[in-house]
């Protein structure tokens, strides 16, 4: 187990390096420049490029980036509050924590709603409950989250006035409710569908039939025996989902005015703010890679058939 984890961590480091290198080359391949806007001449842009080292060969710039990152230096922003350390922009004023709070709550909602709904649908297969949940989750998956967000705003904030329209930094504990629902609805529905499918698969297995024949109660049958196997595809999905929820709230953060990290994934690219593009990508990749590692370990716990070392099956 320990050896396996070590191996995986080493592989992860290489992946991260590749991600950084590819991002660097890709962001330099798109046309545009942080110093170019409607009023700038090309000469002015070149002077600025020289000042901030953007005139050096790409490979030299890339080497500098990677070396700086190894020293924990994420560089300085070129556009957003120019000159401010990227670390302050991304982690300053609790930005990262806000995104984490929102993501964690959305993740809770996803797991606590999605999995039971999937189980209920599977157990009541073909009945009215199943049909209702099927329609609900299809709509939930199809509705883009800005639509969900707008509906929630209109209903809960403008019409009923029970929740604040602008969530801000969640100073008001109620403020996190709408963003969390808007962020998680899609995932709740997706996980419900996923759970239902794999649950149906599991319910029809021989060992469940045997257990049922032995007279086990339905509850214990579903939650103790079937669910454990049914969860494998769900757990696989939860890894990337977690990373996505933690950093992927661009639309939700913008709509509800949450000053989180999510918006920087999009705005930094629009601004061509290279150091922030690098930083957000690396933070997100680290999260995804880390989550995948955790998922692989959770597999071992959920499903004893999977062996981590691959030698003993």
């Amino acid at each position, binding site marked *: 187990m320990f050896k396996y984890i070590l191996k995986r961590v080493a592989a992860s480091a290489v992946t991260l390096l590749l991600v950084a290198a590819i991002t660097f080359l890709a962001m330099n391949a*798109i*046309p*545009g*420049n942080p*110093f*170019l*806007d*409607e*009023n*700038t*001449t090309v*000469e*002015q842009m070149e*002077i*600025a490029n020289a*000042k*901030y080292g953007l005139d050096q060969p790409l490979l030299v710039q890339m080497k500098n980036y990677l070396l700086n990152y190894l020293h924990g230096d994420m560089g*300085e922003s070129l*556009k*957003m*509050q*120019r*000159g*401010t350390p990227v670390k*302050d*922009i991304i982690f*300053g*004023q609790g*930005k990262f924590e806000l995104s984490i709070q929102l993501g*964690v*709550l959305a993740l*809770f909602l996803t797991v*606590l709603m999605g999995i039971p709904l999937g189980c209920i649908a599977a157990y009541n297969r073909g009945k009215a409950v199943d049909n209702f949940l099927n329609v609900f989750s299809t709509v939930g998956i199809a509705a883009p989250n800005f639509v969900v*967000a*707008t509906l929630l*705003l209109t209903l809960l*904030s*403008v019409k009923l*006035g029970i929740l*604040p*329209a*602008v969530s*801000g*930094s*969640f*100073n*008001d*504990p109620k403020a*996190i409710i709408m963003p969390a629902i808007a962020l998680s609805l899609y995932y709740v529905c997706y996980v419900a569908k996923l759970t239902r499918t794999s649950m149906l698969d599991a319910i029809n297995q021989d060992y469940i039939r045997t257990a049922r024949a032995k007279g086990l109660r339905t509850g214990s049958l579903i939650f103790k025996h079937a669910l454990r196997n049914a969860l494998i595809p769900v757990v696989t999905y939860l890894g990337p989902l977690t990373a996505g929820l933690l950093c992927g709230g661009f639309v939700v953060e*913008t*709509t*509800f*005015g949450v*000053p*989180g990290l999510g*918006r920087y994934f999009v*705005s930094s690219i*629009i*601004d*061509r703010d290279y150091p922030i593009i690098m930083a957000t990508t690396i933070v997100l990749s680290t999260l995804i890679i880390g989550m995948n590692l955790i998922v692989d370990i959770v597999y071992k716990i959920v499903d004893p058939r999977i062996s981590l070392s691959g030698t003993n099956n």
Partner: protein
Amino acid sequence: MKRKALATFFIACGCLAMVFGGTNVRADEEFTIDAATGYSEPHSMDPTLTTGGDQYEIIVHMEEGLMKFAPTTEAVGTNPEEMAAEIVPGQAESYEYDEDTLTYTFHLRDDIVWNDGTPVTADQFVYAWQRLVDPNTASSNGSLLNAIVKNAAAINAGEMDPSELGVEAPDDKTLVVTLENSCAYFLELTCSSQLMPLRQDVIEGNDTWTEAGTYCANGPYVMTEWVHDSYITLEKNEKYYDYENLGPDKITFHLSDSQTSNLAAYQSGDYDFISGVPADQIEALEASGDLFVNPRCNCTYLYLNVDSMTDWRVRAAVLLAIDRDNIVENVTQDGSTAAISLIPEAITTSEGESWPDAVGEVMYSWLQEQYPDYDLSDYVGRCELAQQLYQEAVDDGWNPDTSMDYQYNTSDTNKAIAEAVQSDLSNVLGINVTLNNIDSAGYTQTISQGGFYIARLGYGLSYNDAIGYFNLFGSNGSFEYSGWSNEKYDELVAQAHTMKAGTERDKVLEEIEAIMFTDEGFSICPLYDGSYTYCMDSTLKGVFYPAIEGVTIFSYAEK
């Protein structure tokens, strides 16, 4: 057992909520204004580096230039409670200029200090102006003073030291500016954020000086808090010379570009002012009396590339065939007005008359003279002439199967406008137009390389002088992307630069614009003039709006 686990979980959730949450303290007695300018986090609050009206809106509450905007008693736009603005002395108590208007001498007020108590001195202006033109500052407004203040262009090009700039401080309270050309709008320029004084001792060596705490104010308000991506709070500056007359105790600018949530916050009473509302809500809000429209100094136009559309009649046909009323009524739907001239309504002649009102439908006047049989004041008549001109061009060898590309920078509005133009050109002239969108960051770089047929651009001016638009085009134009040049145009632009404001100069400016819409021109096709839509709490009074900057100023608001 399971129930217990569930209960434990909910308790844990509760604890989390308590840990994450806090309490909301609100003092009721204060007069506060919550405003959303419709923009997200400003790229910079450094007055030298600002790029847009959203930043100016906040900065103008905190910083003051030699001249400043003050409310008049005349209403602006559709709201009788919002006042127009005029330019009055700000940090300068008085000024004088020589006969040729080439040397300005400003005398600063005696009672001006920064919020930390340091006096405002003339050399702080010198520092700010030199910093602006210094190419190392890499300000996108670095060329603002080119051809105006002595040596600015050479310094900005890196050929001269910033200390050679034509601005001096003979003593703490006197500022002398030497101009290269008599600049009709020079006093207005001194209101812009780039020419406000700066503290060298605060800025040098501190890249994060624009944060609350170190941000110095010499204007009416001072920044007390800036939660990035969320809001900026300003409070009254006790050291300001007009402190006694200031309005709100606290102004909070909410930094969100989500029009939906800004509107929701306005409707639920959290915000007193929002600018920019979703297009589909405009009608309902206008009916309920919440929405107001102000003119804004911005013109959206198309470049008709003279290298691709070599026949002027093809370009004129394109200009005539576009239904501008349809665009403003059904596409933008935000109170923008159909262009009849390149120069928007917010620009005035030297006598204060709105430019389009003074010069009339300059886009069509030459054509009307040449083709008196068509009624060009009407879209149907314009379409008939467009078809006639296009047919003439085809008869002279223009290939009617030519497919034209239309370049625009990615945005929903730009796309919808492009589609409207596409359909007009197809219906009226049978031209096949292909749409091509380009990411904003690389847009001007791409179209500056030419090779297109049609490309859109919008341009806002921050001083009230039509010449700002004429500077964009022609051989020396900073934005001449259609490949057009005209000797007479260049000459007249150069001449207007050296003239003093007055009716004589207005005539020259009119002549310049007329050239653009003759058989020697039609490289620019104006579409519409922008607008500024906002909702404001009906109890707010005393708010004013300098149309030229397109910002709302709350410093003297009352409730």
